[in-house]
């Protein structure tokens, strides 16, 4: 138990510290790297409460895919660092307010769970039955049966977001020559080559 408590404090301390560094650090690339560190340690915290499936999904989705694209974009941007810092004080109250609201909501949520007899597992109707199997299996059992419609709606939201992104970026540019794999593969020897008799000193 001591080892677990120690691990918790290490993960938690690094999560909070790196989350602070995301906001404070001067270089946006460092910010993204600290964000990745925060994700990673949050995954560690999930592991400690026995939610190994969510921990792995956090690493796969956020660290493995989302943050890579973040880093990708931030590295490509040519940002003037001093310019970026200018609005910091002006935006600080807004950011702090949003942070405070989120923190209050979190406290409220923890308070509701902590006050009554319900625990996080107890929020699920299957409670006892779910805890008997590992949580990957438990999620699988309810996600596609009991929460099927919610799952579908979540998928629909993602689909709409994807279509939106495509609509925003798709533009037809006239006069652009495209690679057509089918045409390239179907080209025959006759179409591609001609045998030319070149007269001496005449050129082609």
């Amino acid at each position, binding site marked *: 138990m001591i080892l677990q408590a120690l691990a918790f404090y290490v993960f938690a301390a690094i999560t909070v510290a790196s989350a602070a560094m995301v906001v404070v650090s001067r270089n946006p690339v460092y910010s993204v790297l600290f964000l990745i560190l925060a994700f990673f340690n949050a995954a560690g915290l999930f592991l400690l409460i026995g939610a190994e499936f969510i921990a792995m*999904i956090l*690493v796969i989705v956020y660290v*493995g895919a989302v943050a890579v694209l973040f*880093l990708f974009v931030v590295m*490509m941007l040519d940002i003037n660092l001093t310019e970026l810092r200018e609005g910091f004080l002006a935006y600080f109250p807004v950011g702090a307010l949003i942070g405070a609201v989120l923190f209050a909501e979190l406290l409220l949520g923890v308070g509701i769970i902590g006050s009554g007899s319900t625990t996080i597992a107890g929020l699920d109707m299957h409670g006892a039955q779910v805890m008997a199997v590992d949580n990957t*299996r438990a999620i699988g059992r309810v996600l596609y049966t009991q929460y099927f419609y919610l799952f579908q709606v979540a998928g629909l939201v993602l689909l709409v977001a994807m279509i939106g992104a495509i609509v925003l970026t798709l533009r037809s540019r006239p006069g652009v020559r495209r690679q057509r794999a089918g045409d390239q593969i179907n080209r025959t020897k006759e179409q591609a080559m001609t045998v030319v008799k070149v007269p001496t000193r005449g050129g082609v």
Partner: protein
Amino acid sequence: MYADLINFFTTTWLGMALVMLAQCLAVTVPLLVAVAYMTYVDRKVWASIQLRRGPNVVGPFGLLQPFADGLKLVLKETIVPSSANGILFIIAPMIAFMTALVAWAVVPFDDGWVIADINVGILYLFAISSLGVYGIIIAGWASNSKYAFLGALRSAAQMVSYEVSIGFVLITVLLCVGSLNLSKVVLAQSGWFWNWFWLPLLPMFVIFFISALAETNRTPFDLPMSEAELVAGFHTEYSAMTFGLFFLGEYANMILLSALGAVLFLGGWQSPIPYAPFTLVPGVIWFALKIAFLLFIFSWTKGTLPRYRYDQLMRLGWKVFLPVSLGWVVLTAAVLTFGGWLPKP
């Protein structure tokens, strides 16, 4: 006496830490030796393909060549370019090497021979392999050089694209197994070698192998370090052991993906024929042979195929592999459900 020893190693902190350390060394040391000899085998295979002899000077049959190369890299000076970002420049190769090593914690070498027999083994492997891209992308950015940066961007885009199809391949396998535990994946494939998943899931095996080539930046997908355009790609600015760590990490990743291929599709530690003399051979040897077979195909591909163009690579990943693997997931799920072959939970 023995009871005391067993007690020491199973209950006390020091004993358990020592056992853990020993387990880590028992995996890492053979792995590093395998990496060293993989470079040798690679060069010998390419030499044979090109009708050359390959390394044959250092030691008998050139067998000490990997160690000569390693020693050379260790003894050289590490140069950090003056315009590079010092900290990230040094951290990048460490990340690349470390992510290739930590994934081995969940690989089952034989029945019960696994450091961490966790029940989300496949997800862990997938998560760790998706981290490998950070070493490369940080290296490219921290080098502050255009070749390195272009190589890193190519690599990041390529690895993210092919991870999608690898994910679907993993889903088909775990649909057939009904568990995310790698030992259970192997046990689900017991019996003759045609019971292994390579035959029922043949298209997925092919997609997995090609995606593995793309994940490890090997020919025909070695655009991140195509020497004709980008000097050496993301590790252009690296020298000595910092380059060495990238190199070791790349080969360790190749061996890891081969091991994953052996576990998922070639029955892991199981013998191909489930009868006596074959079953008497230790499982770890069968496992090593299967990994070696897949690694040989890696070398063979590199010695044979020309490099893809980048748009062709993206087209293959997104327009061919993604729909095919997604379709195969649906097909597998349908066949398992309506055929009544769903694995019992």
